[in-house]
């Protein structure tokens, strides 16, 4: 069934769009990533113009994150205070990020800059996560050795002021590291045009020492606000949110997120981490390939005039 999208001005199969929404929603519910880094390339692939893909993608991320976070709330796997602290840093960071983005756009190399940031950050985060979780799985498979799980590793982070109790995470730490993490992730999200869940999830696990199960819900909670903010911003500034496209993606996405959350429950923490690592690495490798190998079409057409 073909459907003409009023803002994108293209006609696309409705079931294909629901399917894409479903896949991204599934991953979103399972890993706690918004899926912004997946939905934009997928929409571009089927012929949605780039601006529309980014803005409408943000709208669909809101829906699947809400669907996912409600499932997490029911099992008390959302650390609301931590989410709010991260968000406060995130808003500052994304504001700085959008300024840098505008500066890079003026220089005319914003595409390259975004692609290189993707390769660098996804590559590093994916590799670190993959190695760590592979080790954890390998350790747990060897009989006789009980994995040593240290709840607290006291270091310089615990000597910082402004300590706060994060009950759901079982942490009593200073608010400064979460704010710093939030700012950094918001900054990257601002330049890369994504919610930043795939950076936030590993940062919460490895830098803040939060348990994996809580991380997913808290990440989703934070992403709702960031992508909701982004959606309205795009709708007002560039008029690139396509509601009909969003509706189809959302229908698939919210159902996918529920199924993803169920599947995620059956997996062990280290299994979840290694799967997310593989996904992140796959996207990084794909973008690196695009940069390194000659594309089949060297030319691209942009409507409008560049300075």
């Amino acid at each position, binding site marked *: *069934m*073909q*459907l*003409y999208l*009023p*803002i994108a*001005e*293209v*006609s696309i199969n409705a079931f294909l769009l629901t399917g894409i929404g479903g896949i991204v929603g599934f991953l979103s519910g399972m890993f706690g990533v918004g899926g912004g880094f997946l939905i934009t390339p997928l929409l571009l692939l089927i*012929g949605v113009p780039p601006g529309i893909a980014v803005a409408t993608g943000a*709208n*669909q991320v*809101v*829906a*699947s*994150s*809400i*669907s996912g976070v*409600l*499932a997490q709330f*029911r099992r008390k796997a959302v650390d609301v205070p931590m989410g709010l602290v991260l968000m406060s840093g995130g808003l500052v960071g994304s504001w700085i990020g959008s300024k840098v983005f505008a500066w890079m756009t003026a220089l005319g*190399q914003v*595409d*390259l800059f975004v692609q290189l940031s993707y390769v660098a950050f996804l590559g590093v985060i994916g590799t670190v996560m993959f190695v760590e979780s592979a080790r954890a799985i390998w350790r747990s498979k060897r009989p006789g050795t009980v994995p040593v799980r240290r709840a607290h590793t006291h270091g310089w982070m615990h000597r910082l002021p402004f300590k706060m109790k994060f009950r759901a995470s079982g942490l009593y730490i200073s608010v400064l590291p979460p704010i710093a993490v939030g700012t950094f992730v918001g900054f990257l999200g601002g330049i890369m045009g994504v919610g930043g869940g795939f950076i936030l999830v590993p940062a919460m696990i490895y830098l803040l020492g939060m348990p994996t199960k809580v991380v997913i819900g808290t990440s989703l909670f934070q992403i709702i606000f960031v992508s*909701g903010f982004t*959606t*309205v*911003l*795009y*709708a*007002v500034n560039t*008029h690139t*949110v*396509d*509601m*009909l496209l*969003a*509706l189809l993606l*959302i*229908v698939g996405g*919210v*159902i996918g*997120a*529920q199924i993803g959350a169920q599947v995620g429950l059956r997996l062990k923490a280290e299994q979840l981490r290694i799967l997310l690592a593989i996904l992140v690495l796959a996207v990084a490798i794909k973008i690196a390939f*695009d*940069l*390194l*190998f*000659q*594309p089949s*079409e*060297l*030319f*691209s*057409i*942009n*409507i*409008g*005039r*560049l300075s």
Partner: protein
Amino acid sequence: MIRALALAMTLLALPAAASETIVAGLSQSRVSITANFDGSEILIYGAVKRDAPEPEDAPMQVIVTVEGPSTPLTIRRKEKTAGIWINRSSVNVGSAPSFYAVATSGPLDKILSSTENLRHKVSLDQVISDVGITAQAENSDDFITALKRIRIADGSYRLDDNSVILKEQTLFRADVQLPANLTEGAYRVRILLTRDGKVVDSSEQRIFVHKEGLERFLFNMAKQQSFLYGLASLAMAVVAGWAASAGFRLLRR
């Protein structure tokens, strides 16, 4: 002197042009884009009215063009720099139609002389205005070639030689396929009659492509009440997210 000559030429040319005129019609003067719009076909038909017997020197030929609204474009080219492929050079095209179709009753280069092509702007090269691009990049012609190649591949530009059916040198019809990714606006339909490479008569009409129903409503709201539109999109996302969560909870019970 020159003016008198010009007048004399027009007077001489007039009866010749008037001897064969086009009487044409369109299957529709409006194309409505609704939610299930998946391209459309327009039929351009007509006949040739003659005051005198048909000249016998060369057979009559028909050219039909359909041209969508034009926009400025930027065409960019990737080049290998420091081991990676990045956009290096770009060319700004003053204006290029969003849609262009040429349907003819014979090979275009045979039935239309190059001077007449220049005057009436018929072929694809004539409708893409590429003034001043040579200063913008090396091999700037490659950019225009690429534009044509990409747009022919996605159906925005169509060159349908021999697709106009011409009967008894009098009746003609052309079917032009409009793609699904149509933009709004006035589409110019031209019919040209040629003999021996020269244009004998031409006629011009317009087709209006317009969004309707839900498409119109959403498009207007997005442009005119963008903040409300943004909030509505957000509300839709929140309700859908909550409904799916509540629905799955009921399912598991």
